[in-house]
């Protein structure tokens, strides 16, 4: 037989350039194969700590993103009315002059008139530095509408949370419990981890209303009712305490379980030096918790006080937390709850593991081995994007701590620079004055009412009302409230809204149509209520049409970036790591990296920290900043190759630093010594390593906070104690929600609307092959997710007599949409859901106006208001968690009815003119010959 002769060793590429992906927030390492100076193929970088060679669909489709027809081409000045999409291309000189002229006037009179909010920003340590230099208190990134509950609950409870803060010990865990809608953060590492668990037959349990993705491969699925995760978790706590299956040794040594709480005040008993006190079991004496050799007594008796563990027993052993009491509400049979608690206990205690690694704890006690409890948890937005999300996330962290599985072999492990206790974080700063920088970092962690961002008259200092009595612990700000508050002039009016990478006129806002109206609303003089809007984006997103000035950003392969330890790091549990992006291709358009544009603006405005005394620029561009900026002497954005090139963590700036990163594959890794890899908050070897790396200035061991005293301080204020007092209308709420031990309360929507009239919960989740709105412009990815039906359960399908191809009208108390429906059997019976951000506005993203994303794709955002329904008190109550201000996306309740098949989803929006035209009809994408 004659087989053709084929070349099985064709040349793969001329060159491989290694940089960092930005097709989602995961930040994997990629090998960009170049042919003739063009991107020919993208694959994962095997050496990279995040993805270890693998790459998801989004990452592999990067070639379609850097060549997308939706890329903006030049700075734009709006010439038609807002929303029309009519722009004129202008030069960078004109764009920068215009922006600096607007901003300088604000800075010289009242810097708070600028609201600068960045969306999916990966340079927050830089953008916040810029905003601080400018002097506005109004800065945050998108955490407030993303997962601030998870992050903040984690920091207050144990000094870190999931994803960027830590990860399961994938190589050792035997039971992995995944809560909530989590098909994305973090993307590849979870998939790699699941693969490892599957390969050795470990058990995966999914707790999620929707059985898709990771939950589809979970060995057990608990189809929980949305918003009840906290109740389920506290029921597990009930079972474990009742069974006596908690880690007493761990609780006594490493947590505040033995601390003594004053019955009268609810505050922790301390000595005059402010050190918490415990009763030593050996001597019965009252001694500081960290004294050498002390054995804190969990069941101590001290007049007028109870230990935290005693308080927990009194609360969680109440019958209201028994599985039988919560089963109906959670939508999970009591036996399944008991079985899960039993399995957690079985694996944690009967299958405990040990590593023969000696270590020394902060009390000076030497341990000859490391005991591990091989149960690990993970959760993200699914449990946190509720009005009870903070307490739910707290409950989950407390559950992990009770079984002693945090920061031990087989359990949940922190990634450097975490763990970091609250004390290692700044408090919020908000004092602004003309022509001055802000008095400190914007965002931080309040320790009590004294740190709220209030003006002298008690009114909110920030436009988003972060760090106010409405949401005291809003550590990431409330980006979802900025436009609404600015439009309402509540707490005050602003002049310029400056946004980066945030599609606020579409999928990134609640109440999309309302936000569009706010952006285009005119005052009595015929001027826009929000007078000026500057926006930076790389692509022709829906938000572009609503800005007055567009500063076009580059794509991720055309820019410098740093994935910094000062920011949102990419470390591993056993290593510190950071990374860069660098221009592996040059832009073919008149665009500039946004961070470089911020530096150019700072130089024009002569902002402190950016110019010398003589007015000359300190930094030429962002690359220059990455290398030469020092946050503290010797500590800069990148930790590797400092000084003469061989220093890590601390060291003088090194002009060759970026080249060294590029030669190393775009990243740098420093491994933690073996005896420092676990028990990090209490491990002397880790603490010393962390000081050497510059994470702390001195060792700072701490106890996990089962009982969060700062929360009690807000309750006390609400009870009338202290100088700073909340307004009367918030006292009840503060007393109720700022409970220092985790509680569960129903999502606010359950009380605001009639659950009988709106019987269904409505959710979105992000598909693994699409990231927010970005993927739609990608010719390959949009063939996977080009439209999104509303998925309904068997129960709903039968109740309404749906058939394939049917449409439904879905209504909330706020609005209605008409959309296609589809049956999904693996679904909580009272839940409907759809994919997030597939629906697009006609005219955006260089798609044709009849693209399925614009006709059959839809947003649930139209059903969700940024405010709770009016209560008749004249107040605007935000639809957010009352502790952190996290947007309560998943509280949504709806009703559904069958309607005649439609040709397009409702609501309709007029097409916006495209500043970039339309994409081509055919793609035949072969770069090499």
């Amino acid at each position, binding site marked *: *037989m004659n087989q*053709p002769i*084929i070349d*099985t*060793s*064709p040349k*793969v590429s001329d060159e491989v350039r290694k940089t960092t992906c930005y097709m989602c927030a995961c930040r994997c390492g990629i090998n960009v194969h170049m042919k003739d100076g063009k991107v*020919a193929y993208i694959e*994962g970088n095997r050496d990279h700590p995040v993805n270890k*060679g693998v*790459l*998801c*669909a989004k990452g*592999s489709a990067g070639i379609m993103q850097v060549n997308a*027809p939706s890329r903006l081409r030049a700075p734009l000045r709006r010439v038609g009315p807002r929303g029309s999409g009519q722009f004129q291309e202008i030069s960078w000189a004109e764009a920068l002059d215009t922006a600096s002229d607007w901003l300088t006037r604000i800075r010289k009179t009242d810097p708070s008139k600028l609201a600068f909010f960045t969306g999916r920003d990966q340079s927050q340590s830089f953008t916040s530095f810029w905003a601080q230099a400018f002097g506005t208190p109004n800065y945050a990134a998108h955490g407030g509408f993303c997962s601030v509950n998870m992050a903040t609950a984690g920091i207050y409870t144990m000094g870190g949370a999931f994803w960027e803060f830590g990860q399961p010990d994938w190589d050792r865990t035997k039971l992995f419990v995944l809560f909530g809608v989590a098909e994305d953060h973090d993307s*590849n590492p979870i*998939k*790699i981890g*699941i*693969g490892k668990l*599957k390969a050795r037959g470990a058990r995966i349990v999914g707790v999620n209303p929707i*059985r898709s*993705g990771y939950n*589809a*491969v979970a060995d*057990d*699925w608990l189809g929980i009712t949305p918003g009840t995760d906290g109740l389920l978790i506290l029921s597990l706590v*009930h079972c474990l305490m009742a*069974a*006596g*299956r908690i880690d007493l*040794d761990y609780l006594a040594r490493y947590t505040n379980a033995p601390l003594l709480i004053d019955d009268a005040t609810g505050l922790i008993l301390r000595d005059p030096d402010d050190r918490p006190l415990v009763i030593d*079991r050996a001597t019965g004496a009252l001694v500081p918790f960290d004294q050498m050799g002390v054995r804190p007594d969990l*069941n101590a008796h001290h007049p007028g006080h109870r230990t935290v*563990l*005693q308080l927990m027993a*009194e609360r969680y052993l109440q019958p209201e937390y*028994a599985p039988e009491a919560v089963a109906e509400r959670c939508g999970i049979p009591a036996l399944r709850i008991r*079985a*899960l608690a*039993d399995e957690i206990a079985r694996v944690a205690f009967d299958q405990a593991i040990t590593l023969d690694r000696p270590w020394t704890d902060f009390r000076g006690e030497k341990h000859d081995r490391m005991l591990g409890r091989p149960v690990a948890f993970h959760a993200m937005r699914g449990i946190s994007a509720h009005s009870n999300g903070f307490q739910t996330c707290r409950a989950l962290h407390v559950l992990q701590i009770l079984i002693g599985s945090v920061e031990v072999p087989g359990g949940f492990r922190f990634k450097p620079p975490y763990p970091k206790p609250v004390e290692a974080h700044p408090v919020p700063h908000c004092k602004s004055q003309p022509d001055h920088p802000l008095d400190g970092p914007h965002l931080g962690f309040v320790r009590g009412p004294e740190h709220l961002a209030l003006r002298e008259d008690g009114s909110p200092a920030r436009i988003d009302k972060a760090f106010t009595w409405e949401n005291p612990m809003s550590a990431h700000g409330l980006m979802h409230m900025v436009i609404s508050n600015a439009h309402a002039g509540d707490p005050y009016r602003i002049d310029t809204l400056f946004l980066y990478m945030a599609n606020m006129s579409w999928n990134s806002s609640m109440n999309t149509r309302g936000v569009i109206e706010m952006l285009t609303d005119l005052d009595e003089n015929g001027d826009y209520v929000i007078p000026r809007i500057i926006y930076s984006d790389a692509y022709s997103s829906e938000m572009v049409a609503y800005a007055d000035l567009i500063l076009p950003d580059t794509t991720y392969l055309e820019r410098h970036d740093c994935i910094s330890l000062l920011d949102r790091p990419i470390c591993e549990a056993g290593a510190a790591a950071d990374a860069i992006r660098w221009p592996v291709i040059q832009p073919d358009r008149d665009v500039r990296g946004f961070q470089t544009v911020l530096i150019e603006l700072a130089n024009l405005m002569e902002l402190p920290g950016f110019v010398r005394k003589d007015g000359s620029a300190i930094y030429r561009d962002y690359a220059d900043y990455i290398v030469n900026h020092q946050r503290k002497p010797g500590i800069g954005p990148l930790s590797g190759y400092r000084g003469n090139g061989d220093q890590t963590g601390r060291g003088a700036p090194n002009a060759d630093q970026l080249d060294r990163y590029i030669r190393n594959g775009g990243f740098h890794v420093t491994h933690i010594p073996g005896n420092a890899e676990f028990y990090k908050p209490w491990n002397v070897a880790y603490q010393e390593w962390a000081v050497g790396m510059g994470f702390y200035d001195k060792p700072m061991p701490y106890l996990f906070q089962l009982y969060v005293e700062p929360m009690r301080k807000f309750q006390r204020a609400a009870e009338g104690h202290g100088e700073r007092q909340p307004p009367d209308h918030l006292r009840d709420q503060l007393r109720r929600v700022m409970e220092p031990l985790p509680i569960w309360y129903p999502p606010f929507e359950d009380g605001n609307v009639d659950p009988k009239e709106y019987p269904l919960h409505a959710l979105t989740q992000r598909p*693994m*092959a699409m990231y927010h709105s970005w993927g739609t412009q990608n*010719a*390959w990815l949009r*063939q996977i997710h080009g439209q999104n039906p509303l998925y309904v359960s*068997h129960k709903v399908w039968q109740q309404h007599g749906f058939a394939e191809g049917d449409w439904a009208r879905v209504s909330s108390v706020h609005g209605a949409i008409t959309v296609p429906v589809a049956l999904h*059997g*693996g679904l909580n019976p009272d839940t409907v859901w759809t994919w997030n951000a597939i629906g697009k506005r006609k005219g955006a993203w*260089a*798609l044709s106006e009849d*693209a399925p994303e614009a*006709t059959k794709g839809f947003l649930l955002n139209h059903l969700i208001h940024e405010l709770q329904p009016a209560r008749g008190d004249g107040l605007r109550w935000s639809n957010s968690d009352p502790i952190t201000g996290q947007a309560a996306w998943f509280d949504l309740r709806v009703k559904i009815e069958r309607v005649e098949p439609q040709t397009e989803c409702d609501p309709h929006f007029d097409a916006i003119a495209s500043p970039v035209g339309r*994409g081509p*009809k055919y*793609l*035949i*994408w*072969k770069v*090499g010959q």
Partner: protein
Amino acid sequence: MTCLPQTTTRKLGLVIDLDTCVGCHACVISCKGWNTENYGAALSDIDAYGAQPAGTFLNRVHSYEVEPANGCATQTVHFPKSCLHCEDAPCVTVCPTGASYKRAEDGIVLVNEDACIGCGLCAWACPYGARELDAVAGVMKKCTLCVDRIYNENLPEEDRVPACVRTCPSGARHFGDLGDPSSAVSQLVESRGGFDLMPELGTKPTNKYLPPRPKDRLQGVASEPAAGPSATGFFAWLDRALEKI
């Protein structure tokens, strides 16, 4: 008509673990990227930014819902599908020009695009729907098992696997010689009960699938509560337990 080789020296193929595949489509896009740039004509996309985008893919992931017989909750199976490189490949024997062929040395089924007239008979004959006619190039496209990667001396040895295998984040895809009982993939098939897709058709696919493991088995409680569901009982237990530490 085109003849199949009597035997092949090796039987290279994929083993796909349906217990582990999370349905992320990484393999789909990695395949699209590599095979657009490499073997034969580019995998084109028509109406790429329009109403009915339709591109050529050599590998697609389908999702199916399964209602378990025991009354437990509905399950979802993610099912990646590409050419199975059958031993008795009907797509080859049906080819009128000899363009479709099965390689004698490794069993890979390929299309010689120079000889392909785009008649589509092979796609019709394939019971798995694993071939797609590229609408722009007018030639039949199919999984090549990355024949231009697995022997490619310009790639590091560890990268000489199909693009879909190299990229799969959960490690659900395995590549090797299924004709060698001692190979890792054959062992995996043996230990996990790997199966042929639609064996009744007699195509003898080389690729194998590993079945999902049984689910939802956490239904009972083994241990008795030591402390009891009350604070008083808990404190008594706590004192006893602390004495033992």
